[in-house]
């Protein structure tokens, strides 16, 4: 049933009895034209675009648990395209443009809310770096604004201007950046893909890959063997484990990133703000909770939970940015498994195994990339060559030296 005010009203009068499951739970078939491994945002978006734009309908998404139970259901919902490097800006801008039309395209309100992403800076050096980045954006046709301290203060009076250890000097604003309701993205793409005939197979874990003569033949799963000549891997923090099934090692360490939400309060913060004297970022969701976090704990982890020092550091940064937060309460914390690459940028590439494709290495920034990553993985799987805007996301860049290091952090995960 189409989602619209009409269906909402008519169902309201019928006691909501006419709604149906938002996607089917079919039995796996013996064979598909393509399999996408991973029922998160990227995997479901890929399946949707494979069906809607590349004409592949006989495809399956296999997900070891439930749709959207991984990082897409755990992130801090920020979308933006305010990157520095020419290899990144067009990709994220493509993603942002897809976000802008998403709700109408998949008929699901993902609450795409472009109320601005503001990156604060606190020193001349940081300001110069922000100017470099803002100019890079502008040269790519992506709007950015440089705000003075007074302009920041006019928009966000509650930040610490008078008592800060590292006073705010100004900020770089991308007004078109903002937030999106993450759960709706997973469910929306799942429903839309399902409508186009994609089989979403939940509780179906990839246990092995059948490879012969250097080409992939199919997937061994907890629900049986499924043949497919094209398999796309989109499993975020589990990328190394899945790549190992194909005998591959990746330039990836899986780390835990913890994020937090406060109790719901009336509107206080109307855009996303990032703190320059730390890694802290914060925004307010439509439900009223303040969603915030900082950086990874700093060690390999698959546990989906972090430790107390990181919680304390994050809250210290919170107070440094906005001392009003002290009276508000942290309500929930959660952790994800982040596939951190050695240069902080992702991989969307073929693998040495023919028919096997990899989308991973999204570090802590995969959510904003969801539509474009799905589109580019779909393009790669359908055409066997990289999408134009994902050309730089090669696996071999670590060997060639064509790295995409936005921050200059090198292999230091905490700096990405």
């Amino acid at each position, binding site marked *: 049933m189409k989602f619209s005010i009409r269906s909402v009203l008519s169902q309201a009068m019928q006691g909501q009895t006419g709604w149906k499951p938002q996607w089917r739970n079919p039995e796996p078939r013996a064979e598909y034209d393509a399999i996408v491994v991973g029922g998160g945002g990227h995997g479901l978006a890929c399946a949707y675009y494979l069906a809607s734009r590349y004409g592949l309908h006989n495809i399956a998404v296999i997900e070891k648990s439930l749709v959207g139970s991984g990082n897409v259901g755990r992130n801090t919902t920020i979308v933006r395209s305010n990157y520095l490097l020419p290899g990144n800006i067009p990709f994220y801008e493509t993603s942002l443009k897809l976000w802008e039309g998403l709700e109408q395209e998949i008929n699901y309100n993902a609450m795409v809310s472009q109320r601005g992403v503001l990156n604060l800076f606190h020193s001349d050096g940081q300001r110069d770096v922000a100017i470099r980045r803002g100019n890079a954006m502008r040269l790519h046709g992506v709007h950015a604004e440089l705000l003075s301290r007074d302009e920041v203060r006019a928009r966000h009076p509650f930040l610490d201007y008078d008592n800060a250890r590292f006073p705010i000097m100004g900020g770089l604003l991308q007004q078109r950046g903002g937030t999106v309701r993450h759960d709706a993205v997973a469910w929306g793409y799942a429903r839309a893909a399902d409508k186009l005939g994609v089989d979403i197979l939940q509780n179906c874990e990839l246990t092995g890959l059948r490879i012969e003569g250097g080409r992939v033949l199919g997937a061994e799963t907890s629900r049986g063997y499924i043949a497919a000549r094209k398999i796309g891997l989109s499993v975020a923090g589990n990328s190394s484990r899945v790549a190992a099934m194909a005998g591959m090692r990746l330039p*990836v360490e*899986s780390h835990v990133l913890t994020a937090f939400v406060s109790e719901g309060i009336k509107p206080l913060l109307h855009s996303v703000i990032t703190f320059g004297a730390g890694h802290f970022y914060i925004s307010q969701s439509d439900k009223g909770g303040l969603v915030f976090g900082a950086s990874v704990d*700093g060690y390999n*982890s698959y*546990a989906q939970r972090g430790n107390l020092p990181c919680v304390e550091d994050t809250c210290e940064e919170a107070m440094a940015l906005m001392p009003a937060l002290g009276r508000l309460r942290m309500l929930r914390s959660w952790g994800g498994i982040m596939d951190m690459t050695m240069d902080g940028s992702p991989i969307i590439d073929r693998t040495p195994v023919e028919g096997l494709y990899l989308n991973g290495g999204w570090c802590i920034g995969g959510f904003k990339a969801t539509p474009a990553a799905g589109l580019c993985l779909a393009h790669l799987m359908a055409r066997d060559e990289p999408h134009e805007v994902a050309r730089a996301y090669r696996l071999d860049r*670590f*060997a060639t030296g064509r790295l995409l290091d936005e921050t200059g952090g090198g292999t230091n995960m905490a700096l990405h």
Partner: protein
Amino acid sequence: MRLTCPFCGNRSIAEFSYYGDATLTRPGSNAEQSAWVDYVYMRDNPAGPHSEFWYHEAACRQVLRVERDTRTHTILSVQTA
């Protein structure tokens, strides 16, 4: 999370810096560049026991070789590097 430093005793992880995979061997200077790419970039990244280096930055500045399960964070062993 806490580590028992052989020199300083049981301390919070906040005192340490992480240096990653301890199973790597630095290639000889005449090795193929692919060996170097492997050494600097490629990782096993296991879900399970992981041998890794931790540097006791806030105290004795010694590097420790730690075996830790990345699924549960259980410390299995701590030795000097």
